[in-house]
């Protein structure tokens, strides 16, 4: 009996050897992230914040004086920022901040700029840039002075960037510039591509005014449509060319493109609309939409001219104070927000104009 007991002791000894392999969780390593996760201000006049890699654009209501502004930043866990934002109270010119990770191994430089609700109304997609450390291109607009780049356009390229391994070849991305322009030298080309991911099988070529946040797990939350706009738009017009890639992956219908523009009211709870509520939000005032997104006839560009239909009165005072956002959205696959589309569907867009009252 005692021998048998010894035997079991031997077994428990062996199990004790095995146990540490699964059991010991080591102390957490210091964080390596250097993100600015949120920006807040000591005023109600902060309308919107666009995070574009290392550029952060803070959209303010017209009455806010940048010279007396104080901003606060929410950083990644354990990260530190220099200089201390509490000691900075003048944003009349761009301010640089540097964020260092908790483990001190990573540092990211940010440029914070103040913007006022003065979205341009003409989009010719002549100017493209490659964001830092990214392999894709994205169009930008210029402010009234022509000196400062307005990064108002966003696309799903940021998520697709992780999938690509063809460094610095922007033509593999769903959203890219093309020389096949209606006017000027360049136009926007949106191509739907397959990703090979089981849960996200395709990436629709898309381009919209707003912000794309790839870190959202729910893709419809990644697309944050719209930026402050101080006019009442009546029409959106421009030129486009569309070639469907065939039947869509999920629903198996002929793929179509989507062109739409939405003016919506912003408030404390609604800073932007996303893929879930861009069609249903009660904040929507007016919408202009291309009704038939089928292939365009002929070889060249075709004009579109879409009228805004308003369900709600637009509050003029709120409009002037930056209380409305305009979202302009182009997609090569109408069902792109739910990963439905056809490989190769291609939408070219150029010479877009917003006609205001």
């Amino acid at each position, binding site marked *: 009996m005692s021998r048998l007991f010894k035997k079991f002791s031997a077994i428990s000894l062996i199990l004790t050897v095995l146990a540490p392999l699964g059991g010991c969780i*080591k102390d957490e390593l210091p964080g390596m*992230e250097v993100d600015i996760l949120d920006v807040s201000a000591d005023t109600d006049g902060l309308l919107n914040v666009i995070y574009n890699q290392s550029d952060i654009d803070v959209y303010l209501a017209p009455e806010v004086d940048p010279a007396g502004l104080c901003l606060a930043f929410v950083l990644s866990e354990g990260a530190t920022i220099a200089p201390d934002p509490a000691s900075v109270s003048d944003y009349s010119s761009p301010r640089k901040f540097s964020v260092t990770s908790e483990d001190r191994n990573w540092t990211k430089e940010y440029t914070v700029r103040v913007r006022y609700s003065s979205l341009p109304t003409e989009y010719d997609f002549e100017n493209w840039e490659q964001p830092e450390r990214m392999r894709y291109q994205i169009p930008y607009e210029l402010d009234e002075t022509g000196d400062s780049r307005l990064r108002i356009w966003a696309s799903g390229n940021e998520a697709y*960037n992780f999938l690509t*391994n063809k460094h610095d070849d922007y033509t593999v991305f769903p959203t890219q510039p093309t020389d096949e322009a209606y006017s000027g030298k360049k136009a926007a080309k949106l191509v739907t591509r*397959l990703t090979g991911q089981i*849960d996200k*099988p395709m990436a629709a070529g898309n381009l919209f005014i707003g912000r794309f946040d*790839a*870190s959202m797990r729910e893709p419809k939350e990644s697309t944050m449509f719209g930026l402050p706009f101080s006019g009442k738009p009546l029409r959106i017009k421009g030129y486009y060319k569309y070639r469907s890639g065939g039947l869509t992956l999920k629903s198996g219908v002929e793929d179509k493109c989507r062109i739409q523009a939405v003016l919506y009211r912003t408030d404390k709870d609604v800073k932007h609309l996303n893929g879930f509520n861009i069609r249903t939000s009660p904040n929507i005032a007016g919408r202009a939409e291309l009704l038939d997104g089928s292939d365009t006839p002929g070889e060249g560009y075709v004009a579109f001219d879409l009228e805004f239909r308003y369900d709600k009165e637009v509050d003029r005072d709120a409009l002037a104070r930056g209380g409305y956002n305009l979202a302009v959205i182009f997609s090569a696959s109408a069902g792109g927000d739910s990963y439905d589309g056809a490989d190769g569907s291609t939408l070219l867009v150029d010479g877009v104009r917003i006609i205001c009252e």
Partner: protein
Amino acid sequence: MNIARNAILAAGCLLAAMTANGAEQQPRNRKIGYEIGLGFNIGAMSPIGLPAEIRKIDSYQPKANLSIDFAVSYMLSDKWGIGAGLCFETKGMKTGVEVKDYHLKMNIEEGDEQGTRTGYFTGRIKNDTRVTYITIPVNAVFRPDNDWKVEAGPYFSIAIDRSFLGDVSSGKMRETPLHPAIGISKASYDYSDDIRHFDFGIGLGGSRRIYRGLSVRADLKWGLLTVLDPSKRTIDMDTYNIYLNLGLSYAF
């Protein structure tokens, strides 16, 4: 599963052999001994010490990994001998862990952009592995008395069936902290081909006779070769087969 069917067959043979054999025999006193054994493997494809990137083990589920083996031993003296065997066995487990900033390689094998990506993943990882091996152990045998037997020596395994499935979920992935984080709700993978065809390691086991030729035994097999092929591996961690076999053997 073939192994399961073989195991049931073997259990039948074992019982048959037990009843057929005479009670007076002292099988262990023979110079050449034969044994058949039946057991199950509990263990893991585990790193030696958990890396700090693993923050929490959500679940660990051993599988009913059956083994069936046949062994021959040859006694060189009263107490010492040598042995060798042939074993069909499966080694497998299910694990769920939470990781932080865990460096991963991802193979993208479909779509317009194929190839390997690397990045840091924070979130949940679930793995489900099962490998069927044909294993040949070679042992030094020590028999202090009629009841006990201790064996130690190297083993060599060939994988005849490999499966390594898993998914990452509820997390985010980024190339470096300076790149944007990509949210991941759920992405599945199949890295079965990353498991090496070959494994070897060392074993240490003991058995005690409980009734006639029947013994209980415990046998620890510690793999010395990383389970995943370093040239292909997608998980940036050295993992080894560490399994304890518990079971019965019958000498005849």
